[in-house]
C-alpha cells in the first residue's frame, strides 16, 4: 500500500484482473514482498494470532446463532440444547466461550508489547488509536455475548454494567431505560444485545482492516525501536514471517485446545449455569477476567459517578498515550528507567485484576483489598499521566545501534552485505 509495487502479473489472466481490480497486487505487496524488519521477536506474532481469533469467533458465532434462541424464557435452555444435542454443539460453544478469553489474552500481550517497544510513537499513532478502538469494540462485543446464555452472571453482569450509565447526571436513568427497553434488564434487552453481538464483530473486522492498512504505511516497528534504514534491515514477509507466525500460532492453538477440551469452564463462573433470576443476586458478581482490572477501579471509589469516571478514564487514557510519552527513544530496551515502570504496570494490572475478582470486603495480609485497589488505580493513572511524560524528559537512554542489520548480523556481516 506504500512504496512502489513489485508485482508483475505472470499470465494474461492476472494482467487482465490487475487492470480492473488490482487485488492480487494488493495481496502480493502486503502479504508477500512486504519489507518487514528482520528482528521481530515472538511478541510480534500476536497480530496474526489475533486475526485468527477474530476469524474463529466469527465462524463459531455464526454457527451458534443457527441454534441459539434470543428469548428470555428460552435462551438458557437453547444453550443447553447446543451443549447436549446439537452435533458438535459443545465444541462450537466451548471454542466460542474460551475463544473470547484467548482473544483477550492475545490482545493484552499485543498491547503490552506495543507499550514496551513504543509502537504507538510517531509515525504510528493512528495504528495505536485504531487498536484501542478495536479493544473497546471487543469489550462491548464480549459484554453483549456474555449476556446471551442468560445465566445468573449474564443477567446481573448486564444489570451492573447498564446501570453504570445511570450515573450520568440528569439523563442517566433515561439512557439506562433506553438501553434496557424496559424498566429492568429483560427480554427486550436480551434481543437487542444479540443483535449487537452479531453486528459488532464485523465492525471490528473493518477496523482491523484500517489497523493493518495504517500499519502498512510506515511498516512494522521492531524491538530496537529504530527506523528501517536500508533493505538490509528487512526481510520479505513471505516466507520469513508467514512461517514464523504459523509456528507460534500453532503453539497458541495448543494452549487454546487445552482449555477447550480439558478445562472448558476454567474462565467461566458456575453461577452462569444457573438460569437468570431477577429476584436473587448471586453473592459475588464478578465480570469475566479480562474486565477485572477496570471493575476493581470502579469498586475502589466510594462514589457512583466518580467510580464510573475513573473506570472510563482508564480506557480513554489509552487513546492519549502517543502524546503522553515524551521520550525520543521508542523501545524500552534502551530506556533503563522506563523499563522498570513498565514491568511495575504489568504487575499493577495483575493486582487490579486480583482485587476485582475478590469479594468487596476481602483483605490480603490484613490490608483491605479496596485500599490495595485504590493504590493500584493511582499507579495506573500515575504511569500514564506522570511517569510517561516525566521519565521521557529526565531519562538518559542507552546508545541505540546504528541499524537493525548491524544489531542482528554484527558489524562485519552488515558491512559485507552492503
Amino acid at each position, binding site marked *: 500500500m506504500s512504496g512502489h509495487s513489485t508485482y508483475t502479473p505472470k499470465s494474461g489472466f492476472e494482467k487482465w484482473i490487475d487492470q480492473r481490480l488490482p487485488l492480487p497486487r494488493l495481496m502480493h505487496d502486503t502479504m508477500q514482498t512486504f519489507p518487514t524488519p528482520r528482528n521481530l521477536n515472538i511478541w510480534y506474532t500476536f497480530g496474526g494470532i489475533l486475526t485468527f481469533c477474530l476469524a474463529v469467533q466469527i465462524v463459531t458465532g455464526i454457527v451458534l446463532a443457527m441454534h441459539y434462541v434470543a428469548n428470555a424464557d428460552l435462551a438458557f435452555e437453547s444453550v443447553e440444547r447446543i451443549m447436549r444435542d446439537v452435533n458438535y454443539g459443545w465444541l462450537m460453544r466451548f471454542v466460542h466461550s474460551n475463544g473470547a478469553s484467548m482473544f483477550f489474552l492475545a490482545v493484552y500481550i499485543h498491547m503490552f508489547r506495543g507499550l514496551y517497544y513504543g509502537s504507538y510513537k510517531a509515525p504510528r499513532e493512528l495504528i495505536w488509536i485504531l487498536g484501542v478502538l478495536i479493544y473497546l469494540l471487543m469489550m462491548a462485543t464480549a459484554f453483549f455475548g456474555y449476556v446471551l446464555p442468560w445465566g445468573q452472571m449474564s443477567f446481573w453482569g448486564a*444489570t451492573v454494567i447498564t446501570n453504570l450509565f445511570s450515573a450520568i447526571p440528569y439523563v442517566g436513568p433515561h439512557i439506562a431505560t433506553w438501553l434496557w427497553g424496559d424498566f429492568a434488564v429483560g427480554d427486550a434487552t436480551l434481543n437487542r444485545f444479540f443483535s449487537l453481538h452479531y453486528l459488532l464483530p464485523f465492525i471490528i473486522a473493518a477496523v482491523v482492516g484500517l489497523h493493518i492498512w495504517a500499519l502498512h504505511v510506515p511498516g512494522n516497528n521492531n524491538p530496537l525501536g529504530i527506523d528501517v534504514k536500508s533493505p538490509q534491515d528487512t526481510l520479505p514477509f513471505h516466507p520469513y514471517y508467514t512461517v514464523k507466525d504459523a509456528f507460534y500460532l500453532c503453539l497458541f492453538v495448543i494452549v487454546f485446545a487445552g482449555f477447550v477440551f480439558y478445562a472448558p469452564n476454567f474462565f467461566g463462573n458456575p453461577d452462569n449455569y444457573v438460569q437468570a433470576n431477577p429476584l436473587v443476586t448471586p453473592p459475588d458478581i464478578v465480570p469475566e477476567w479480562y474486565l477485572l482490572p477496570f471493575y476493581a477501579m470502579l469498586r475502589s471509589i466510594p462514589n457512583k459517578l466518580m467510580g464510573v469516571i475513573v473506570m472510563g478514564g482508564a480506557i480513554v487514557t489509552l487513546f492519549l498515550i502517543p502524546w503522553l510519552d515524551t521520550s525520543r527513544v521508542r523501545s524500552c530496551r534502551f530506556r533503563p528507567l522506563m523499563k522498570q515502570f513498565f514491568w511495575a504496570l504489568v504487575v499493577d494490572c495483575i493486582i487490579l485484576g486480583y482485587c476485582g475478582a475478590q469479594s468487596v470486603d476481602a483483605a490480603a495480609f490484613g490490608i483491605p483489598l479496596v485500599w490495595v485497589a485504590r493504590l493500584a488505580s493511582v499507579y495506573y493513572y500515575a504511569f500514564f499521566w506522570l511517569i510517561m511524560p516525566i521519565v521521557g524528559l529526565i531519562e538518559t537512554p542507552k546508545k541505540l545501534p546504528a541499524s537493525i542489520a548491524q544489531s542482528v548480523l554484527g558489524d562485519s556481516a552488515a558491512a559485507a552485505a552492503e
Partner: protein
Amino acid sequence: MTDTTHDAGTRRDFLYVASGAMGAVGVAAAAWPLIDQMNPSAAALALASTEIDISAVQAGQQIVYKWRGHPLFVRRRTPAEIAAAKAVDVSSLPDPLARNANLPDNAQATDADRTIKPEVLVLIGVCTHLGCTPTVSTPTAVEGEYGGWLCHCHGSQYDTAGRIRKGPAPQNLAVPPYAFLSDTRIKVG
C-alpha cells in the same frame, strides 16, 4: 450584469443552505424512530399495578415480591428497628431526600416519610448503585452495620428505613407508589 450575477450567487447559496438544512431535518426525523424504538414498548409501559397480600410477612421479616420486573421488598419492622430508624439525624444522611414516590420530590428522609404505616416498609429492592438486589438482615444474620440491607456487589449498606448509610450507592432505596387497601393488602403502582 454584475448585479444579476450577484443575485444569482445569493440565490444559489440560499438554495444550497436551505436544501442542506432540509436534508438535515429529514435525516434527524428519520433517525428518531430508529432511536426511540429502543425505549420500553407499549406493552412494557402498560404494566398494570399489582395488589399484594402482605399478611404473611412476620415482624422482623421481609418477603420479596415482583413488580415491574424488579424485586419488591415488604418488611414488617420490629419496634426496635423503627426506633433505630427514627433516632437518625436526617441531615447526617448521605441522601437526605425521602425518595418516596407517594410524596413530593423534596420530602426529607425522615423515617415517617419513608413509610405509610411505620411497621410496614415497602421498597424497590434495587441497589441505587448498580442495580443488584441487596440482602436483608435477619435476626440471626445481620447484614452490614445498620441492621438493614447490605448489597454484596459493591458493599452499599442501608439502614432499617432503607436509607443509604455507607458505600458507593448515591440514593436511598426507592419507595414505590403504593396504598393500603386494607391492613393486609397493598396496591403497588
